C-alpha cells in the first residue's frame, strides 16, 4: 500500500510519514542558507532551480565494486523508514543494475525511454519498489547510452529538470543518485549538483587511490563551473596551469596550499571557488571494514582531504565486511529487509544518521 506509485494525481504516502515532523519535510535551514553558494558550483548548463527542490544525495567513489549501489539502495530505504519520500535514480547509464538490489528483475521503463527515445515522461518511468516510501528510476542498459552521452552532459537536461521538479511535482524529499564507476563528465556533474556527495571507498589501495582521483576531478569540475558562473574563464585557465603542476610535482604541498598562494593573485576566483566548495558537502564512507585499522582510514582520509585538497570531506561512518550483503544480493532482496538485524544494517543506520545531521535534517 505504501509503495510509491507514479502519476501526479495519486496521493503518495509512505508508511511512516507521520514520524517526521512537518517542518523537517521542508528543505533544511542549512541548505536554504547556503543555496547561493550551492548554485555557484552548478554546471554551466543548469540554471538556478530555486528553493523548492528535493535534497540531493549522490553516491560516488570512482572505483567499481566499492558498494555504491548497495549503499544507495539501503540508504534510500533507511531514509524512507524515517518517513521521508525517496526517489533513487540509477545514473550508471548503460550499466545500470540498481533495480536488482531492490529485487526487481527487469524494470518496465527506464531512463532510456525518457532520455534516449523521448517516449515516456519522468513520472511514467518511475518504478515502485517493495520498500514503502522508496521509488526507483532505473538506468537502462542500452548500448546507445555511450554515444548519447558523448554528445555532452547537456543532453541530459530533461533529466536535470525532472530531478529538480521532483519535489514540486512528486513531493519527493530526497533524491539519491547512484553514480557509475569512473569520472565521466556527467557523473561528475551529478556529483557536483548533490547537496551531499558520498565518497565510497574500500580499505584497499586501489580504491583509496581512485577515491582521491574522484575528489580531485570533483575539484577540477567545480573550478570549471565557477569559471563560467563568475565569468572569469581567463583567470581559471591560469589557475588550471598552476594546479596542473600540483599533480605533477611530487614535492607539491597539495591543492589547498596552491589555493592559498593563488588567492593573492586571484582573490575573486578563489573566494568564489571556496563558496562553491562550502555550498555542498562531501562525506566519506568506508565499506567492507574488517578491523579497527580499516575504520581508522575514514578519519585519516578526512584529514588528508582537508590538508591536501582543501576540501572538507567528513567521515560519515563505516560499513563492516559482512556476508549478509552478498547473501541478500544472491537472494535478490534488499539487505535491510533480508537481514534487518545484521550489524551491517545498524551501521547503515549510522551512516544515514550522519548524512541527515550533516544536511541539517536532524539534530
Amino acid at each position: 500500500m505504501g509503495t510509491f506509485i507514479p502519476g501526479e494525481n495519486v496521493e503518495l504516502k509512505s508508511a511512516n510519514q507521520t514520524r517526521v515532523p512537518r517542518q523537517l519535510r521542508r528543505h533544511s535551514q542549512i541548505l536554504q542558507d547556503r543555496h547561493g553558494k550551492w548554485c555557484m558550483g552548478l554546471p554551466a548548463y543548469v540554471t538556478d532551480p530555486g528553493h523548492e527542490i528535493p535534497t540531493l544525495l549522490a553516491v560516488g567513489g570512482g572505483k567499481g565494486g566499492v558498494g555504491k549501489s548497495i549503499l544507495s539502495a539501503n540508504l534510500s530505504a533507511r531514509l524512507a523508514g524515517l518517513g521521508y519520500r525517496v526517489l533513487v535514480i540509477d545514473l550508471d547509464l548503460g550499466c545500470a543494475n540498481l533495480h536488482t538490489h531492490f529485487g526487481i528483475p527487469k524494470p518496465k521503463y527506464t531512463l532510456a525511454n525518457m532520455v534516449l527515445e523521448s517516449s515516456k515522461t519522468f513520472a511514467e518511468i518511475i518504478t515502485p519498489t517493495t520498500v514503502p516510501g522508496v521509488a526507483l528510476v532505473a538506468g537502462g542498459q542500452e548500448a546507445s547510452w555511450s554515444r548519447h552521452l558523448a554528445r555532452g552532459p547537456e543532453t541530459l537536461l530533461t533529466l536535470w529538470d525532472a530531478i529538480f521538479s521532483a519535489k514540486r511535482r512528486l513531493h519527493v524529499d530526497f533524491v539519491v543518485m547512484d553514480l557509475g564507476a569512473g569520472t565521466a563528465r556527467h557523473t561528475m556533474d551529478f556529483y557536483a549538483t548533490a547537496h551531499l556527495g558520498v565518497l565510497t571507498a574500500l580499505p584497499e589501495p586501489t580504491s583509496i587511490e581512485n577515491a582521491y582521483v574522484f575528489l580531485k576531478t570533483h575539484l577540477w569540475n567545480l573550478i570549471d563551473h565557477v569559471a563560467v558562473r563568475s565569468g572569469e574563464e581567463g583567470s581559471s585557465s591560469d589557475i588550471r596551469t598552476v594546479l596542473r603542476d600540483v599533480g605533477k610535482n611530487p614535492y607539491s604541498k597539495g591543492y589547498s596550499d596552491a589555493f592559498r598562494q593563488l588567492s593573492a593573485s586571484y582573490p575573486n576566483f578563489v573566494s568564489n571557488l571556496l563558496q562553491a566548495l562550502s555550498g555542498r558537502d562531501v562525506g566519506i564512507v568506508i565499506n567492507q571494514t574488517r578491523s579497527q585499522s580499516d575504520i581508522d582510514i575514514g578519519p585519516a582520509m578526512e584529514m588528508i582531504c582537508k590538508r591536501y585538497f582543501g576540501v572538507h570531506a567528513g567521515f560519515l561512518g563505516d560499513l563492516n565486511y559482512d556476508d549478509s550483503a552478498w547473501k541478500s544480493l544472491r537472494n535478490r532482496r534488499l539487505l535491510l529487509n533480508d537481514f534487518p538485524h545484521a550489524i551491517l544494517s545498524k551501521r547503515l543506520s549510522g551512516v544515514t544518521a550522519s548524512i541527515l545531521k550533516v544536511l541539517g535534517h536532524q539534530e
Partner: protein
Amino acid sequence: MLGTTKSNYYDILNVPRDASKSQIREAYIRMRNTFSGQNQALYSLFDETEAQAMLERVEEAFRALNDDQIRLQYDRQGPIVAPESHGHAQEVTDAFRGTGANTYGVVPKTHQATKAMQATAQDIQVKVAKLIEEGDLSDGTLYRKIRETVGVSEDEMQSRTKIGVDHIRGIETNTFDRLPRPIFVKGFLRSYFRYLGVNNSDELVAAFSEKYQDFLDKRGLS
C-alpha cells in the same frame, strides 16, 4: 582548511588555541594514526618520507602543547612571525581560513622551547632506558613502571591496543593464571610496547614469554 606548510603547533594538530589537554592528546593520537606509515589512507598522495616528516612535526607539536609550561611560553610568543631566521617559516595568507578569527602567524621555533621540548621527550626516553637497563626484563612490574613513566593509563592502553584491562593487570603483576595462551600474550606485549614507544621490545617479549612458558611447564609437571 589547512595546508601542510603551516608550522603553527595548533594548526599542525588541528585543534583550537584553547583546546584542553585531553583534546590535544586525542588530536595527537588521531594525527599519529593518520601519518604513521601503515595507514592506507596515505596511499597515492603522500609517500613515506613526507608522512615521516609530517609525523615528526606532529610529535614536536604534541610535545610542546602537552607541557603546560612550554605551551604557556609558546602562547605568549604566539603571533610573532620570523620568516628569515627559520627556513621553513612562512607567512600565512590563508584564504581558506574564512572568518579570519584565528589568523595567527607561523610561530618560530624558539631555541628555549626546542631545548625544553627535547628535554621532556629525552627525559622520558632516558628514564625508560634506565628502567629497562636496571630491571628484570621478564618482570611485569617493570612494564608497569615503563607505562607509568610514559604516562599512559590502563584505560588508555586498553582502548588503543584492545588488550583487556584484566590481561594488562595480569601481565603487570606476573599473574600468569589470568593470561591466555603464550602466543596471544606475545602479541599483546608487542602492541603494548609499540604503543608505549619502546623500540627493541623483542628482548622484553622473549624474556616474559620464556618465564610464562616455564610457569606453564612446571604446572604441567605437578
